[in-house]
């Protein structure tokens, strides 16, 4: 199976999207004969090239971070550039991967509906959407906190590499929490009250010597 992957993160190679894709693709490559090409939307000056890649592909995965509740501006630009492929009969199958900073998968469910419709628009077979919240900050997290869901990405990739499909049950398990549970809410309240939730940000603010300015309101 040949796969074409688009990483839609504005952070390009240094993105969380890249890390999750790495695990997914490792699983994907477990099936002999599989191969992929990976392109970064943000690096690409020539949109025509990306469109060509999409057009020539049999199987596409588009992965991106959630930006203000949907796709970012650059991913929307990419989607707009696909307009010439409208109505073609042999467009690739597409699957999506959306991840966000907030913990709840629910926050990505709205753009998921858009993506499913987009696949329909382009006459693409729709494989589904991998959704995961709570991803901001993973790059500094200890292994024991990330290994479980990294493994899910690997497994999802492995099944996809074999069958060309996303496993529904795995998607559901990976997405947890879909909403915050009562306990989850308590945890977030507690973390906020104690300042625990802010450590991640405050550490960086201090490193940047901007901690005193963190509440600045430059526009009033």
């Amino acid at each position: 199976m040949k796969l074409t992957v688009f990483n839609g993160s504005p952070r390009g190679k240094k993105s969380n999207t890249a890390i999750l894709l790495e695990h997914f693709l490792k699983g994907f490559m477990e099936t002999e004969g599989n191969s992929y090409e990976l392109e970064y939307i943000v690096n690409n000056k020539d949109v025509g090239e990306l469109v060509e890649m999409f057009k020539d592909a049999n199987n596409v995965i588009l992965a991106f971070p959630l930006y203000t509740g949907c796709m970012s501006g650059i991913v929307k630009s990419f989607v707009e550039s696909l307009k010439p492929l409208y109505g073609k009969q042999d467009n690739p199958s597409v699957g999506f991967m959306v991840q966000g900073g907030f913990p709840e998968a629910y926050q990505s469910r709205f753009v998921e509906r858009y993506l499913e419709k987009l696949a329909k628009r382009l006459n693409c077979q729709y494989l589904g959407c991998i959704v995961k919240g709570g991803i901001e900050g993973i790059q500094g997290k200890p292994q024991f906190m990330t290994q479980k869901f990294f493994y899910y990405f690997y497994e999802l990739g492995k099944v996809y590499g074999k069958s060309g499909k996303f496993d529904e049950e795995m998607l559901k398990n990976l997405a947890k929490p879909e909403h915050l549970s009562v306990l989850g809410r308590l945890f977030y309240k507690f973390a906020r009250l104690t300042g625990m939730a802010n450590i991640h940000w405050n550490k960086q603010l201090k490193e940047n010597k901007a901690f005193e300015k963190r509440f600045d309101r430059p526009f009033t």
Partner: protein
Amino acid sequence: MKITILNGNSDNRKFDDYRNNLVKMLKLSDNSVAHFKLKEMEIRHCRGCFGCWLKTPGQCIYKDDSHAICREVINSDFVLFAAPLVMGFPSAVLKIAMDKLIPLLLPYIELVDNKECHHEKRYDKEYPLIGLLIEKGDDTDSEDIEIVSDIFVRFAIDFRTSSRFVMQTDIPVQEVSDEINRI
């Protein structure tokens, strides 16, 4: 009332005329209107660096036109987002500008309605109410409108405000203007 219009027109004369009429009408009924034609402005797309929270808190580290937009938006009573639908969604030009509003928030997260995580407001005031004006494309159906409206409501929650309407340019301009004047 102070109104800001973020106009994400990609390439569409009819939409331009509609919106210009709307601006005229709103001014006639004593509103002050700041009208940004996003396509003609210099707005670098968000790089996801969080510098607007962690380096130069409250503003994008790049001195582009997003500063002027943030200033108008946060001092408005109402913000109208306007764009044609392209591939079933408001234009990328508009979305690029919307991404650049996150300096109006803080990095810190709180539970909204005791339910969902969202960022805290940076400014200690009511955030402007928002509305969306869209022009349908040839391929737009009612499902698209529903999806776009639902995503817009999510955007409103992220920006700690609420969406007043999603309207389409196939109704008379007067109706949109009246709707805004009722806010």
